[in-house]
């Protein structure tokens, strides 16, 4: 099992989600983050104060996948997330020792295999 962590541009999120969908990756978790890399800094001014904003809005995607899915997942992100300009972000692949599905207690592979089934949430 691996955990794929990707930092991408917020405006690319929808495209990446779609690409992941086509790659049959179903489960994932995202969060808003701010990143610093080679991007140009923004300058802002508030009354007399000038400020350099070094951090840019990014989205972090975290996807637990079984080993065979790692390549397709990474590929989908690289393809859909790139604009070619500095600031597109990174993908990290981390080893995972164990995965559990909270609902059932299932482990590892079966923990990340999606069940299309009864409703939940809205």
């Amino acid at each position, binding site marked *: 099992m691996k955990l794929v962590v990707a930092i991408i541009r917020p405006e690319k999120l*929808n495209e990446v989600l779609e690409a992941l969908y086509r790659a049959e990756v179903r489960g994932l978790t995202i969060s808003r983050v*701010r990143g610093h890399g080679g991007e140009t800094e923004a*300058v*802002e*001014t508030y009354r007399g104060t000038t*400020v*350099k*904003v*070094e*951090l840019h809005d990014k989205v972090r995607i975290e996807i637990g996948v079984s080993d065979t899915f790692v390549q397709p997942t990474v590929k989908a992100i690289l393809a859909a997330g790139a604009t070619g300009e500095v600031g597109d972000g990174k993908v990290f692949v981390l080893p995972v020792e164990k995965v559990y599905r909270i609902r059932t207690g299932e482990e590892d592979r079966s923990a990340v295999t999606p069940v299309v089934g009864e409703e939940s949430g809205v």
Partner: protein
Amino acid sequence: MTPTPINQADTAWMLVATALVLVMTPALGFFYGGLVRAKNTLNTMMMSYVALGFVGIAWAFIGYTLAFSTGSNWLGGLDNAFFRNVGLDAKGTIPHILFAGYQATFCVITAALISGAIVERMRFGPYVAFITLWSIVVYAPIAHWVWGGGWLGKLGALDFAGGTVVHINAAAAALVVAVVLGARKDYARQAIIPQNVPFTLLGAGLLWFGWFGFNGGSALGANASAALAFSNTMFAPMGTLVVWSLLDITRTKKTTAVGAATAIVVGLVAITPAAGFVSPVSGIALGAIAAVPSYFTILWRSGTRLDDSLDVIAAHGVGGTVGALLTGVLAQKIWNGTADGALFGNPRQLGIQFVAVVATIIYSMVGTFVILKAIALVVPLRASQKEEGVGMDVTQHGEEAYSSGEGAILVQPDRG
């Protein structure tokens, strides 16, 4: 300059009415600002706020005289340029300067209304130039036609508080600007969701509040006509809100808050030309009826390539036109002392109203187009794709609406 006598009660009411209309422009900033994405919040609000500066001063210098001083059928003269001869003596029953100030607030909000069609993409400098010129070249003449002694007023067009002058006018301009600028890069490709619906509700509430001055004040005194206009301004939008909610429920099983805020504005727009001319019950009917075309225009519009982003056309254009025409249908001499509408035996009024609507639309569209193209010769109107992506707040104003200050490094002052 010894002031000639004024009516104190009228003055009291018009002081308040003026303050009420002034607050509509900030309110509009919140109505619009809540509907855009967070990265464009300040830019959208500033599009309203800045009108309070540039358009207001343009009005004092030149707009007022073109609209309201004695002139031709088409345009006022220059007697009151730079507020010359605008003093404390009475114009009607209130001090002249108060009348000029009251009218200034109308000009300001009309210009600001247009911004709803072009949020999230127009560069700020050209925008300011555009609304300033527009207020002089387009707004002032049309105001003169209807209220300043011009041909539409003489023809007998009924426009109590600005259905044509303000709303149809702004919407026609909005259509042109939206087409000239083109759609936002994400339009119809990504979901663009309101960043702060409470702000939009706040804006709607304050707009309603201010609109009492807009319509009630257009009686220019604390009289029965003001009371009628005021009451219609209360009950007509109530009717719109009810019908809109029922349409929402019928179509999606849910009433929406954005819908409710929109309904309030549509009802207010529609009653504007009619406010002092129709009975309260007609006012409710008018408000209720007006919900339908605007509702479906919004549905239809969002399926087109026309990125009238915050639906100025549906709310102000369609709402204003429905209101202007229904004024020609529902007006009653026993309520307004002036004219009956088609339903009360005077079908000609409907024709006059129609002429006023069409004339306003044509002049506004042509004038808007010319001004825009003139500005575009000098500077580009539109932000670059990259700026649009980053957001107009940072790129146009160097600020963020909501900031936690993370990772912001103090550069200046470094003298301390």
